[in-house]
């Protein structure tokens, strides 16, 4: 296992992605500690251009965009993390159980998964958000997580299904090992890299889903997130008035977060799938 990590840290793509992501993470986590500015208090006029007091200008209510960006990144990342973890856990559990057991259990679970996949997730997200009338960051994370697992479940199920035919599974079975222990001891360790990669992708898609929901007005109350910044910019016609500082920064950050995670994933793919490595 140790050798894998050393290889990972030699991959340029992984390192670059990791550095980018960590930079934004630090910005979001530590930034608020250094600034005294309250993102919800107005300190200037509506849509003021960037100046010395407000590095990225002000938004529709005169609040500092730069500070919002810091708090917004933190919230978005938090929601993404909660959602990503829930989605990965759900996906791995359902997928590995279906793949390992096969037969009727597999067909039932995969049938369920396929139903979820065919319905556009945005529809489910909107419906759930409206039905569950709690507007907090953790609640959002939960909702997004609970709709994000099907892709992971399918991929994990395929892996588990092929691992099931290996002989060490047979040996463990005739030693009397039960299903749960089998999956945890004999199947999951072989999928570790796969699961790790799936988590990174879930994280990325969850953050983007949060942005989408927030832009539609289903975002968390009392907090600022990257998506909520976009919602404000949309509602208050920042584009038409030329206040680029109100919507370009959050867009830029969302792009960079996504990109950095994809980069990490690409680097991991190279390491975990040696066939892709250049000889």
């Amino acid at each position, binding site marked *: *296992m140790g050798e894998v990590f050393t290889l990972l840290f030699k991959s340029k793509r992984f390192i670059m992605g990791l550095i980018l992501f960590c930079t934004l993470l630090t910005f979001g986590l530590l930034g608020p500690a250094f600034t005294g500015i309250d993102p919800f208090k107005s300190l200037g006029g509506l849509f003021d251009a960037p100046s010395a007091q407000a590095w990225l200008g002000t938004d529709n209510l005169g609040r500092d965009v730069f500070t919002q960006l810091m708090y917004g990144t933190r919230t978005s990342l938090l929601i993404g993390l909660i959602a990503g973890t829930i989605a990965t856990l759900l996906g791995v559990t359902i997928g590995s159980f279906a793949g390992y057991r096969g037969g009727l259990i597999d067909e039932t679970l995969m049938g369920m998964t396929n139903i979820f996949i065919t319905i556009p997730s945005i529809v489910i997200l909107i419906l759930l958000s409206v039905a569950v009338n709690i507007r907090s960051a953790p609640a959002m994370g939960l909702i997004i997580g609970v709709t994000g697992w099907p892709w992971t479940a399918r991929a994990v199920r395929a892996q588990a299904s092929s691992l099931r035919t290996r*002989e060490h599974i*047979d040996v463990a079975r*005739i*030693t009397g090992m039960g299903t749960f222990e089998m999956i945890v001891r004999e199947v999951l360790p072989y999928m570790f890299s796969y699961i790790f990669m799936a988590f990174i992708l879930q994280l990325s898609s969850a953050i983007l889903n949060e942005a989408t929901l927030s832009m539609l007005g289903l975002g968390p109350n009392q907090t600022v997130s990257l998506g909520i910044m976009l919602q404000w910019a949309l509602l208050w016609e920042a584009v038409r008035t030329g206040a680029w500082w109100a919507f370009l920064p959050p867009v830029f950050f969302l792009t960079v977060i996504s990109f950095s995670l994809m980069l990490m994933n690409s680097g991991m793919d190279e390491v975990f799938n040696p066939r892709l490595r250049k000889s």
Partner: protein
Amino acid sequence: MLDNSNKRKSKRDTILDIRNLTKVFGAGKHATVAVDNVSFSVGRGEIISLLGESGSGKTTTARMLLKLMQPTSGTILFNGRDITSTQGRKEAKEYWTHVQAVFQDPFSSFNSFYSVRTFLTNAFRLLPTEPSDSEKENMIQECMRNVGLNADELLSKRPHELSGGQRQRIMIARVLLINPEILIADEPTSMIDASSRAGILNILLGLREKLGMTILFITHDIGLAYYTSDRLFIMSEGRIVEQGTADEVITNPRDEYTKRLMNDVPVLERQWEI
């Protein structure tokens, strides 16, 4: 089915009795009969081989005997007791204390994340009473010794640090820890080099000599089957086409398929005419 050995059915009592064992995969038009109404019996302490090419049904039969697969129909009697349909995990665990296996691929038979020690210690969970820690340690040391391996050197190693021959020996050590009455060896040396093969086979044969274990070899290697076994069962397309003592089947085959097999296998004594 040609059987030369009925008269010579030994004073050995029957430990395994297989009757009309059948396995069908798929259904309707696409149904494949992998094992077709197979019946045979094995005496306690006997060494037999299920000999056949790939697709003959020998591996499927073995998996059913190991309760890794449910038969479509038929009966398996172990020590006179019908064990075909025992489904519960407790009964299956009890069965596995009596019947164990060594598999073909020494590379994928091991979980590459665990050490040899963890692998062997895992076997203790099958025993009806769990031994104390010091007893476990003694048993592991002794079993490693019995398969010709240095415990101190190898116990902390992980599978990828060992050779194929060493891994198969550890497989056998695991079997020794459980001490079953029957061992099913599925192509135990086909992925091992010729020079390491003999050592492993001799250990397996020693299990009968020293512990009275009944051994079923599943193989396509006629030479191996002949060397190790008292009786041979030739399988083709899911059926047993011939059975008898090893000498009878090799030197005086009666079935057409067996005759062709014995004619085509390369031996040193007689050269092919080509």
